[in-house]
């Protein structure tokens, strides 16, 4: 009997989707009618959701046509459900049809959308607004918050003095006095779980007014006291030294003696000297204070006894306190506005009716904690019995705590649940992903009777050589890294990496074992030149190592010779910046290599940005110019791209502020002439007209980009106040979030970040820059939240920037944990990157030796990899090391003979229309009396009731009916109550006339509503037709001046009525305002 809670540990390429699909089908096929309704499959991204759905439908569709017992999936399903082929086919079809017709219950969804659904059904209980939009863009929210806070400076003196201090501090650091940047930097944390986890402590402390200033005072007084103490110690040390007639150089070590450190005491930047490792080891033994035969031994001994010893031994503890308080300072000023940020955020959310995406998890955790699962299902209207959760390693603490009660509920009723994930591929820690859950915590939290762990260990993705290579690399690397951090950071690695990577080895599936081509692996190392190193020491942003760039074109040509299509090749990088450099380099190659048969087309995330397109830049220049016609730069920007798109050469005239090339003169004149009309257009139309005006639709260049831009405007208008200025501001902030969509089969090499590559696979993977610093520092350094208790007993939580200062402080624990996790992050990144390759893997890396020892410092991935490969690395049965110490390369594998592949791309004829038409004149609309047509406006202004009454009488069956209509129109807002009263009065007066009254006599059949239809569809509608026994009456109401045409019209009606009724007909013309009845 299998246990109900399955925990799948799936390594790279191990058929995770297959497993999920299989497990899903096992559950769904049990009960074709409703089985699927009880399963909730949770995926990480929208795209994954869709793929999962497609996959399930696809498999069901295939199974309903043909079952192949040879396929493992089919066989497993038949076995599990105890069905034969025929039955499985029938079941599958039934299930498929039920899913397709109950599609709303086909619950494959992202965590977020499931959570949102729950929250919506608890909105009232959670005290949310009835309608809210989920806001994804927390950056934009933060932007607004910070602006609002800064504007409050005038009214809030505490805030004001806080911010001014902050601004000053910034200036002293050589930064801009504009504090908004700094506040935003730290402010992001208010949306993060790592901060929210401490919210209670925060509310109790910082949440209270006056707490932080007090803490600030406390910090500064502790630090001040330490400086004073340092100075005092210095004085004391000097006194002792002089008392015993010593110089600091008399101590062991003479001119480099530890004793010189006494001179450093009391330095305001660091009042107590650090103990070096040797000091720490040797100083406790007084014998190490003097050289063996020192004549001053006694003096030194005495000085030691007189207090020097005690002083020295007191330093470590003092340093620790100093570091603790110093590290608190760094973020304190930005932290100071957290309280305001949080209060302001609450107001903003309320005002704009938004729910932040980052709040979703909190709310849900609260809902599932407070409510029993059955009631929750009652509220959302669906009862889930099985949960299948994918990518579990990226699940956050809050998300898990939301799910847990639901899972437990399901398990308690004996239902199957399933988690799938791979700790080794957890690279979303920065977004809150907590791999410890999968690693151990879930197992600790759920009763072991339920849990069954399964490892998916066959790799279906890669060739045997690649698998064997990765097996070896990732068996050795974790240990190597652990040793490294132990050595370099002096901390206990706690086996974290080894534990995460136990059982990393994957098997080769049977069917692949016989293949002759086993894969190709090639790694190259280069020693870093010293200039590269300097940048890194300063903790500035890392420069891209350009060494590898030269080698890539050759490699790409080789791969093409080998028969690979460009789309088979992927370059994996760590940052978008690296990607951009790479893309530029290839574009350059492509420019210079024109004429050869080789191609170098690349697609990078960067190159897909919509604003890369000249056509888009041209429209943007156009829009910017229209928003501020005095902006000459915008105007020139517009013309510069116009020239580029239309092949007009660049020239001085083009840029010169008073110049304009002849080719453009007519165009600019037209622009000036149409400027006002452009400025009045709604945004969407303006963009459309702009594209046409600029000849971009005719040129049909950059169509994807232009479409992408239009789409962005479209989305913007949907959600925002649609004005041009607002849009331009928004675009400035958001342009980097918009990329064009590329069809899967587009033949170009992909450049993508490792993060984006997760879940994808490529025939050839190239990692051009394998070397990076493992623990981020400087601007990239992460923020750690740590509880803190001050000397005076104040307790709170504080934001710390990860820096080596922390190592020797009360925050050492947090510091070390961050180091361990950073190592794990890097290891995981390497794992993800290395395992994307199906057939070939290429890597390029630099490494460096530390200055003193000839040793590669284990702080960089490049160095670690270098140590690994240069240290006799071997893998597979082959057993021979392929390291070439000469060329610093590792090379393995034989290419097979080239088999030409079909590279023909399917031809798609794009059948789309791009030109824009002015449709306004062609649109037909209905009119009403007193509407905003010129006639309507006139009537309204002149209080012309005639048209209104006419309209009402034409539709009414009598006075009562007419008054009902007056009411209806009033409710519609066409006019105010006093107008309605006047109309009512007029109607009543009119109906008081006996003749009019008789026209509405309910005893006679009327045909008012009907009117007469003549062949061809033209309608003739006299306002009233009354049929009595002996005659028919035709009445038409008119407004305005009398016209002969009125008479003609009524006569025509009379004739028609006569034909239809065969009765004598009487006709009346009734003029309203003033009332006059004319019998015809």
């Amino acid at each position, binding site marked *: 009997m299998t246990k109900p809670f399955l925990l799948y540990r799936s390594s790279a390429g191990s058929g995770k989707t297959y497993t999920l699909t299989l497990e899903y089908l096992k559950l769904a096929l049990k009960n074709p009618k409703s089985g699927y309704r009880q399963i909730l499959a949770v995926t990480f991204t929208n795209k994954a959701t869709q793929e999962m759905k497609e996959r399930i439908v696809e498999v069901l569709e295939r199974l309903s046509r043909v079952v192949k017992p040879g396929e493992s999936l089919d066989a497993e399903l038949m076995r599990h459900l105890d069905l034969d082929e025929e039955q499985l086919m029938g079941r599958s079809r039934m299930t498929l049809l039920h899913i*397709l*017709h109950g*599609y*709303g219950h086909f619950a494959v969804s992202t965590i977020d959308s499931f959570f949102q659904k729950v929250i919506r059904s608890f909105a009232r209980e959670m005290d949310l607004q009835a309608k809210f939009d989920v806001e994804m863009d927390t950056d934009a929210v933060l932007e607004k918050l910070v602006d609002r806070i*800064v*504007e409050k400076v005038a009214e809030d003196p505490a805030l004001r003095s806080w911010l001014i201090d902050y*601004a*000053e501090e910034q*200036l002293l650091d050589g930064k801009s*006095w*504009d504090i*908004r940047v700094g506040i935003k930097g730290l402010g992001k944390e208010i949306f993060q779980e790592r901060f929210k986890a401490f919210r209670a402590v925060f509310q109790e402390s910082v949440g209270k007014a006056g707490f932080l200033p007090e803490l600030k005072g406390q910090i500064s007084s502790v630090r001040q006291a330490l400086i004073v103490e340092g100075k005092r110690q210095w004085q004391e040390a000097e006194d002792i030294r002089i008392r015993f007639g010593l110089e600091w150089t008399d101590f062991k070590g003479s001119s480099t003696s530890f004793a010189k450190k006494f001179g450093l005491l009391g330095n305001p930047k660091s009042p107590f000297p650090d103990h070096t490792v040797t000091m720490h080891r040797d100083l406790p033994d007084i014998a190490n204070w003097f050289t063996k035969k020192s004549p001053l031994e006694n003096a030194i001994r005495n000085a030691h006894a007189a207090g020097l010893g005690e002083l020295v031994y007191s330093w470590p503890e003092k340093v620790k306190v100093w570091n603790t308080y110093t590290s608190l300072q760094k973020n304190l000023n930005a932290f100071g506005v957290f309280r305001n940020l949080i209060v302001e955020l609450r107001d903003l959310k309320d005002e704009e009716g938004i729910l932040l995406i980052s709040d979703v998890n909190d709310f849900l955790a609260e809902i599932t904690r*407070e409510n*029993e699962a059955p*009631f929750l299902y009652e*509220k959302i*209207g669906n009862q889930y019995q099985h949960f299948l959760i994918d990518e579990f390693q990226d699940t956050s603490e809050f998300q898990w705590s939301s799910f847990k009660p639901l899972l437990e509920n399901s398990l308690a009723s004996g239902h199957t649940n399933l988690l799938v994930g791979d700790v080794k591929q957890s690279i979303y820690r920065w977004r809150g992903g907590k791999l410890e859950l999968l690693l151990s915590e879930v197992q600790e939290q759920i009763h072991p009777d339920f849990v069954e762990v399964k490892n998916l260990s066959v790799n279906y993705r890669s060739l045997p050589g690649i698998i064997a290579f990765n097996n070896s690399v990732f068996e050795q690397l974790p240990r190597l890294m652990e040793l490294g951090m132990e050595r370099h950071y002096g901390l206990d690695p706690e086996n974290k990496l080894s534990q995460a990577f136990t059982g990393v080895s994957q098997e080769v599936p049977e069917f692949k074992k016989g293949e002759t081509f086993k894969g190709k692996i090639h790694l190259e190392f280069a020693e870093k030149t010293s200039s590269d190193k300097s940048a890194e020491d300063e903790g500035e942003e890392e420069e891209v190592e350009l060494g590898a760039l030269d080698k890539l074109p050759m490699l790409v040509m080789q791969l093409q010779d080998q028969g690979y299509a460009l789309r088979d090749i992927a370059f994996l990088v760590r940052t978008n910046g690296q990607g951009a450099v790479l893309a530029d380099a290839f574009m350059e190659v492509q420019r210079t290599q024109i004429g050869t048969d080789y191609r170098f087309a690349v697609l990078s995330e960067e190159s897909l940005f919509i604003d*890369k397109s*000249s056509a888009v830049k041209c429209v943007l*220049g156009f829009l*910017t110019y229209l928003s501020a016609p005095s902006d000459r*730069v915008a105007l020139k*920007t517009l013309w510069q791209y116009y020239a580029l798109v239309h092949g007009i050469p660049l020239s001085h005239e083009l840029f010169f502020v008073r110049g304009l090339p002849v080719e453009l003169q007519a165009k600019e004149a037209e622009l000036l002439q149409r400027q*006002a009309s452009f*400025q009045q257009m*709604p945004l969407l139309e303006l963009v459309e007209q702009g594209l046409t005006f600029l000849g971009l639709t005719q040129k*049909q*260049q950059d*169509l*994807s980009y232009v*479409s992408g831009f239009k789409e962005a405007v479209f*989305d913007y208008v949907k959600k925002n106040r649609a*004005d*041009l*200025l607002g849009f331009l501001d928004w675009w400035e902030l958001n342009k980097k979030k918009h990329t064009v969509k*590329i069809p899967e089969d587009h033949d170009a090499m992909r450049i993508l970040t490792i993060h984006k590559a997760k879940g994808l696979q490529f025939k050839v993977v190239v990692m051009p820059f394998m070397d990076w610093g493992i623990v981020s520092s400087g601007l990239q350094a992460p923020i750690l939240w740590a509880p803190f208790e001050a000397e005076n007993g104040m307790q709170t939580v504080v934001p710390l920037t990860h820096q080596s200062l922390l190592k020797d402080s009360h925050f050492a624990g947090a510091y070390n944990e961050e180091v361990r996790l950073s190592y794990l992050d890097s290891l995981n990144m390497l794992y993800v990157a290395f395992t994307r390759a199906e057939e070939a893997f290429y890597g390029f890396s630099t490494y460096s030796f530390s200055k003193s020892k000839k040793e590669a410092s284990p702080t960089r991935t490049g160095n670690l990899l270098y140590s690994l490969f240069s240290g006799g690395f071997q893998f597979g049965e082959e057993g021979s090391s392929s390291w070439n110490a000469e060329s610093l390369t590792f090379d393995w594998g034989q290419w097979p003979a080239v088999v030409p592949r079909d590279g023909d791309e399917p031809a*798609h004829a*794009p*059948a789309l229309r*791009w030109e824009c038409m002015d449709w306004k004149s*062609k649109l037909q*609309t*209905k009119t009403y009396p007193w*509407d*905003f*047509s010129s006639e309507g*406006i006139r009537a309204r202004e002149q209080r012309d009731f005639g048209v209104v009454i006419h309209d009402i009488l034409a539709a009414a069956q009598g006075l009562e009916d007419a008054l*009902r209509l007056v009411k209806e129109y009033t*409710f*519609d*807002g*066409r006019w*105010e109550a006093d107008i309605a009263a006047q109309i009512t009065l007029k109607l009543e007066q009119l109906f008081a006339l006996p003749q009019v009254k008789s026209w509405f006599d309910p005893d006679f059949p009327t045909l008012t509503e*009907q009117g*007469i*239809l*003549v062949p*061809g*569809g033209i309608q003739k509608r006299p306002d009233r037709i009354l049929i009595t026994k002996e005659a028919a009456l035709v009445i038409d109401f008119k407004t305005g001046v009398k016209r002969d045409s009125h008479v003609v019209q009524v006569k025509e009606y009379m004739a028609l009525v006569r034909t*239809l009724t065969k009765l004598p007909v009487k006709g009346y013309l009734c003029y309203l305002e003033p009332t006059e009845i004319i019998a015809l």
Partner: protein
Amino acid sequence: MTPFLKETAKALLDSGRDLKDIRLVLPNRRAGLFFTKYLGELIDQPVWMPEVLTIEQLVYQLAGNTPTDELTLVFELYEEYRQLQKDPEPFDRFFHWGELILKDFNDLDQFLAPVNQVYAYLAEIKEFETDLSFLTEEQRALIAQFWKAFERQNETEKERFLKFWQILGLLYQGFQARLQANGLAYSGQLYRQVAENTGAIAPPDKQLVFVGFNAFTLAEEKIITHYLEVHGASIFWDVDRYYLDDPLQEAGLFFRDYLKDPILGKTFPEKIPAEIKDKGAQIHTHSIPLKTNQANLVGKLLEQVGADEPLEETVIILPDEQLLFPVLHQLPEVIAKLNVTMGYPMRNAPIYAFLDAVLDLQRYAKSKEGLVTFYHKPVLDLLAYSYLQSADATWASGATQKIQNENWVDVPLDLVSKENTLFALVFQKVGSDSLLDYLLAIIQFLAKELQEDPTQKSYLFQAFKQLNRVKEIFQARGTKELKVEFLLSLFRKLFRDLKLPFEGEPLQGLQVMGVLESRNLDFKRVIICDVNEGSFPPGGGIQSMIPFNLRKAFRLPVQEQNDAIYAYTFYRLLHRAEEVHLIYATSGEQGKSSEMSRFIQQMRVELPIAKPQSVLVPVNLTPNQPITLEKTPAMLTSLARYFKPAGEETAEKRFSASALNMYLDCRLRFYLRYVAELKEPEEVVTTIDPMTFGTLLHKGIELLYEIPEEETFRDIDGHSIDRLLPQVPAAVDRAFRELYKKQEGEELLLTGQLQIAREVLTKYIEAILSYDKKNGDFRVIGLEKEQIAHLSIETQEGTKEVELGGVIDRVDIKDGVVRLLDYKTGKDTKKISSLVSLFDRDDKKRNKAGMQTFLYAFFYQYQHPDNQFPLKPGIMNIKEIYSEDFNPFLQLGDAEVTDYRDFATGFKEGLRGLLEEIMDPLVPFDQTEDKKKCSYCAYQELCGR
């Protein structure tokens, strides 16, 4: 193809009944129009038209009342709610809850549910037996399930839910009474009233014919069944075997029920058509990358419409109304007429944005001693709007400029208002009681201006009607205290979901409509966009305060019914169409992936239809070319202005330190700024860029150390600084005043950001003064003085004198040394690695400030050739000035620059080299290689970096 309505018309004609004795009841008004049109095509002589009305009209006539508008209803509901709820939330917060509750009440009535039982707390199973004995076993089970689950909740949660739940029950009762007392009603209420009293319905004078219905509410069903049973009414169904026979097909859900009904069942024809299967329409599905690209495809498809083909036979269905304008823009010329019938979201209309901004303006309007001012942000927003722009573009931009240049934080009325124009109308401060009149006046004004634009006109009319209603409601209730914040919030909530109804008439030309508008209509060619999950059928589910199982138990519609309605709407469009195009986008909101509709998936398995064709948008990209400009004669002429003509005192132009630094940073940037003369655009008001910050700083110090007129120097000692220190804040304020051209006595209002800047500046200047004080007496001999110098260079045309110039922040003499001091607020340092490095563009640490101060020393020496004092260039940088051992003088290598004159030759050498390159006709202006330089460049967009 014969449309259903035409068949119906024919059947009625053929029945030989007198049309004038027929009352046709249809689901919507539009179906009526088409019916008449078809009827006209069938007759050969004039006829009486039958009476045509919608089911609502029929019911309201029977009830003898019309439903009140929603806003009034929600307001009434709130009034009642306030009686029941302790500490009720304000109305604007309640508004959406109110809508939701109202919708529930409507449902309850439409489906004739026993309201008391619905809102009861049924804690005990026993109660089900007694209270709900009229329900079926199954219904009772659902109710029991709900309350059982509820029982397991903890007490606080129970209470939370129940508190509101029980209020709802009371609210329903109270609300009915309240409405009755005021002669008001809501739609469901009228339906229930009629349906529960069918006996009271008078025999109709005409024969009723119901046409084209699908999903009745229970009330409708009762009323119609009554007519069928008692008054011999008849009914025409628009149904197809395809979905009727297959019990899984949700489109047939309701029909299958009706077929089983003893009365309705008999009304179905003997032979139900199977057109979807038999007719074999061409059904194409297209997948396309982006939502807006669908418009491009629609345009293309329509290009293929033959010239002689009637346009009326083609329909474009837009499940997402927002696609309307993109589609309209892309229509081909062959479309001569068109007819749009759908709602367009009001919040996307320009007038919404404008009114929103107007309310924002009022929100921050102030009036002090009769002087009205507005906060600058909404003012600037408004001035940029098309309405004000078109009213008077010059005035609008003039005002904008003035506000920006003079940094008006609170803009006085006079600055923006202009008599007898829209400006005067918009820019006034109105009291809370006349806010709505104010908005209405603006709308009416605009309506007059924009008569020519049919869409604008419709937007305005809709906005007008809505606000008119709001005004009515508030007036009627004497709610005088209408706060702007409240109104703004209400305005946003109201307009958020408001649709502007486009109503095309007469029925000519291409038909464009929403999904529901297409009911009952048939077209030869059908193009449906957004056939995506979430659009067609729409997602979102049913919003209700009544939990799912209770809704189900009391037979209120749940998602299943909703889906069935949309499925029917979809499949019905296939009944008679000959050519169908289903278009879906593969990406949805914000670029997220988007799924094809379930309908396509169903058809692929069941009909089947071909695989979707994917339409590609080419992904080519115009390569961005590097910009390199060879020097042309025109450019050289422009550069020649920097040469001092022989015999003249000065040249037309002179190079500043920043020009030279800019050239070293990027030749193209230098070109654009100084040769093409493109000024970098000005900054906006709320913040200060580093340059302005510097300007303020200089000004502040200049004001303090000012050399009296007629004097050439001023001695400063410790005492004078003691006197100056308290004046610093005032000096900073004056600097601000001068920058923003504020008159004496005019109030200086600063944004929060600027207030901080002011404080920081004050402290910085105080630090400078303290430094000066500490270092002893000195004599100021020049402040912010322009200095000019010339340097001869070799050009192709021989030796020329280039003119250079700049303003030195401060020149003073101290202890026999001339100090040339520059104040810096950035990261600048005093370290210079070598003289050559100052001119080395590849040196990443090239010291620009060093270059500048050296240049100043050069100027000074040039101006004072007989100067005998050592010249010491120095930088006072904010970063270091606070430190105890601050020393402002430049460090070259490891030594302090004690006298410029020691380096003059070397420096001039470097300078000359630089100037010769600038003037060299063979060196083009090109982009910098170091892209970091671009991040602060104003020409980034132009340059493509």
